[in-house]
Every structure is written in structure tokens, then in C-alpha cells.
């Protein structure tokens, strides 16, 4: 390859510099926030017992690592979130395909789906505890309940918006409805699957934490409730920080999947 021109080199250099500046600014904001928080706690501007401080959160984290208890809670929340995420994807794909195959079914069920989707799912959590018991199953169902209806609606809408001319093409090539599904509808909906996954992973985490609030003996949601009840705000804030990091990592995981899949779209 030829050496890029000077103008191109300086353009690339400028672009690199701007990207670095953005990253630095992000880190800077984070550090300033931590510093202000820590300083105001140390200088007694805020009550560290209620507002905690970065160092107290850190110490709490270290002590829970050393007695290994944190791994149980993190592992529980992560397992429940991932399980409900995969189940949501499986269920919504299956139901969306059924709705697409049987158009009258989708017309009949539409109002039910819309109502279930707009219902605040936290309202269901106490019921689930009573019906299914205070165990992992309940938490997973709670996680699913937040995401599954919206996910069905999004995927089904994506299916119905497939270019009718592309559908016609399959029929002109002698295909039937099953061919339309396999050759056009499913492959052309892959970007929609990815977008739904991005939304769902966050929603499942929300649902799982709600479930853990009311019916669990372990998990980060449990730690938050327990910590607030015994006035261990360090524990509450630590759990929240861990949830932030977890959400970020899960989202990035889907971004990786997306980069891999969307090369072709």
C-alpha cells in the first residue's frame, strides 16, 4: 500500500487526538466525582455513615472478597440475569414466529400483549413470590416478566415490516410460507434481534434485582435491601457500583456479538 498523503496523516493524527481527549475527559469526570465524594466525607461536609465514601465502599468490597461472600451474591445475580435473558430471547422468538405464521392469532392477542407490556412488572413480583415460592425460579421469572412482552412485540413488528417484495420473490421462486420464514424473515431480522437483546439484558437485570428485593436470601438485590435495613450504606452503595459494572460488561458482551454478526448487514 502507498504511504498516505501528509494531509491524510494529519487528518488521522487529529482524529486520534480527539478520540483520546474524549476518553481522558470521561476518566477525568469519574475521578473528580470520586475525589469530591471522598473529600466531602473526610471533611465532614456529608455524613459518611449515610452517604458512605469511595474508600468505605472499597473497604467493604475488599472485606467481602476476603470472606468470599461477595462471589456468591454476584454469581447469583449474574446467573439469574443470564438465564432469564436467554429464556426471554427463546420465548419471544418462538412466540413472534407463531404470531407471524398465524396472522389471526396475532390480531386476537394484540391487545393482551399491549396491556401486559405496559403493566408495571414490579407489581407482579409479590404475586410471583406467593405462587412460585422464594427461590431462584421466581427471580428468573421476575427477570423475564420485565422484558418478554416488549421483546415479543418488537420482534413481531420487525417480522411484519419485512419488505413484501422480498416475500414475493420467495413465492415466485416456488417457495412457501416456511421458506419465507427461513430465507427472508429470520435472516433479515438479525439486526432487530441484536437491538432487542441490548434492551433485554438491561431489563432482565432490573427484573432480577426487583425479584431479589422481595424474595431472596442472596444476590446483589438482596444485599441492597439487607444493607439498607441494617444501615450498612457502604454495602448498599457497593452493590450499586457492582450492578453498574455488571450492566456495562453485559452490554459490551452484546456489542461484541453485534460486531461479529452485523458485518454482513
Amino acid at each position: 500500500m502507498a504511504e498516505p498523503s501528509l494531509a491524510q496523516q494529519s487528518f488521522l493524527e487529529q482524529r486520534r487526538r480527539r478520540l483520546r481527549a474524549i476518553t481522558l475527559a470521561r476518566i477525568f469526570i469519574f475521578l473528580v466525582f470520586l475525589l469530591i465524594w471522598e473529600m466531602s466525607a473526610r471533611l465532614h461536609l456529608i455524613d459518611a455513615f449515610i452517604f458512605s465514601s469511595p474508600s468505605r465502599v472499597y473497604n467493604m468490597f475488599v472485606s467481602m472478597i476476603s470472606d468470599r461472600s461477595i462471589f456468591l451474591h454476584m454469581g447469583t445475580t449474574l446467573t439469574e440475569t443470564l438465564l432469564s435473558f436467554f429464556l426471554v430471547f427463546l420465548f419471544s422468538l418462538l412466540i413472534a414466529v407463531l404470531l407471524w405464521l398465524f396472522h389471526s392469532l396475532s390480531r386476537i392477542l394484540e391487545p393482551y400483549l399491549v396491556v401486559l407490556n405496559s403493566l408495571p412488572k414490579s407489581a407482579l413480583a409479590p404475586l410471583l413470590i406467593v405462587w412460585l415460592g422464594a427461590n431462584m425460579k421466581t427471580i428468573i421469572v421476575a427477570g423475564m416478566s420485565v422484558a418478554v412482552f416488549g421483546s415479543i412485540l418488537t420482534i413481531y413488528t420487525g417480522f411484519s415490516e419485512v419488505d413484501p417484495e422480498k416475500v414475493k420473490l420467495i413465492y415466485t421462486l416456488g417457495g412457501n410460507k416456511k421458506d419465507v420464514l427461513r430465507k427472508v424473515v429470520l435472516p433479515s431480522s438479525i439486526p432487530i434481534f441484536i437491538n432487542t437483546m441490548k434492551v433485554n439484558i438491561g431489563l432482565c437485570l432490573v427484573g432480577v434485582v426487583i425479584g431479589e428485593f422481595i424474595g431472596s436470601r442472596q444476590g446483589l438485590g438482596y444485599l441492597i435491601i439487607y444493607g439498607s435495613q441494617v444501615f450498612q450504606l457502604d454495602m448498599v452503595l457497593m452493590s450499586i457500583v457492582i450492578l453498574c459494572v455488571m450492566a456495562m460488561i453485559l452490554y459490551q458482551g452484546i456489542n461484541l456479538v453485534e460486531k461479529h454478526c452485523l458485518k454482513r448487514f
Partner: protein
Amino acid sequence: MNPLLELSHVSYSYHEVNGETLALSDISFTLESGSFLAIVGPSGCGKSTLLSLICGLLKPEDGSIAFRGKPLREAGANIGYMLQKDHLFEWRTVYSNVTLGLEIQKKLTPEHISSVDAMLETYGLSSFKDARPSQLSGGMRQRAALIRTLALEPDLLLLDEPFSALDYQTRLSVCDDIAAIIKKEEKTAILVTHDLSEAISMADQVLVLSKRPGRVQRLVPVAFSMEERTPMRSRNAPEFKDYFNLIWKELNISG
């Protein structure tokens, strides 16, 4: 011997909540094997509906369509349909796009595959087999779409404004390309277009439809006194202008 295709008194209406629209009324014509028919008419006159009827995607409300003397549904007619846009799937390679029809009809046999390979070779696409459709030019995409249709070895080829998505320059050359391919593969074809010069340059006969509801306004046989007819040469032939004026006048009577 029965003609390849015979339409007698075919009518079709679209039904909606707001009422019905008569799209085609009393259409009759016959098509001999090996000929090239162009259908022109004002927009909305039911040209594409006519192709969907011939292809069997729609069922005529009145009248009948016979293929080699038998009703279309029983004739087991192998009809290829080329849509306005190429609709090559970006998630497939060029090769798996052109074999899509064979894949659907479970005809991926060695003979069919080798005939596809031969067509890709002849029409300059064999080095793009593993490329994505987006890497092809507009003309190449259209050729790939035609090969996809021809791979099923249709007895009759329906072309629904296959060049309308191309810019003018590409359009002229793709028109020549496609005409040459159809001639070489000895296919019978029906071309729907609203471009009069395209119709005259490619077809043996031009069917002029009236405005909605579409009726047969006139069937104009087109003949040029030249050997080795191609669309580009036809455009330069002295008779071209006369055909153009004749069909133009017919269209304006109807409009």
C-alpha cells in the same frame, strides 16, 4: 399445437374496505413459444397485476389462463418472474443468492449447479461468486437476479420493469445484456415497462393497455429489417421512430 400461453377474457379486481377497484378487464392474447412480448400502459393500468396473474400468484376473477392448452394451475408451468428490484440478499454471497431458487425447490443437483456455474462464467460473474451483493454494480446485480431466475429453467420469463431502478446509461447496456441472455437461452418472455423505447427495442410485439381498468388497446407487432437484432441497434433503426409514434398515439388515445 397449442400456444405457450393463452389468456381469454381475464378480469381482476382488488377488494378493500373502501370498495373494489377493477384493475384488469377482459384481457385476451396469446403468446407463442420463443417470442418476446412487451406490455406498456399508463401507470396504474394493472401491468404488474397481469404478471402476478400469469405467474399464478393471483387467481383471475373472470376468464381463464391456459399454459400449453391446459389451465395454469394444472399445467405445472415453470414460470420465472424477475421483479423490479434485484432483491439480492445481503446476508448471502452472490453464489448462494443465484442458487436460492434451486435451494427452495430442492434442486441443487450437479446438472443445475453446473448450468448456474456456466451462466455465471458466460455473463461475467464467476469471479464474484463469493462476493456480497453490495460489491456488485447495478448492472451486475441485475444479471445475477436474472441468473437466479434462469437457474430454475423457466419455460416463460416474466420481467416486471427490471431496469427501472438503474440509471439511464446502465439501463441501456443492461437492457442489451439481458436481451442477449434471453435470446441465447431461447426463452419466451413478457416484459412490463412504461418505457416505450425499451419495449420497442426488445420485443417482437407490444401490447398496449388502456388506463385503469386495463383493457387491450392494441397489439402491435414489431419487426426490424436487420440481421442480428439487438436493443441498441433497434433503437437506431429507421422503423423505430414509426413504431414509437404509433404506440405513443395509442397510449394517448387511451389516456
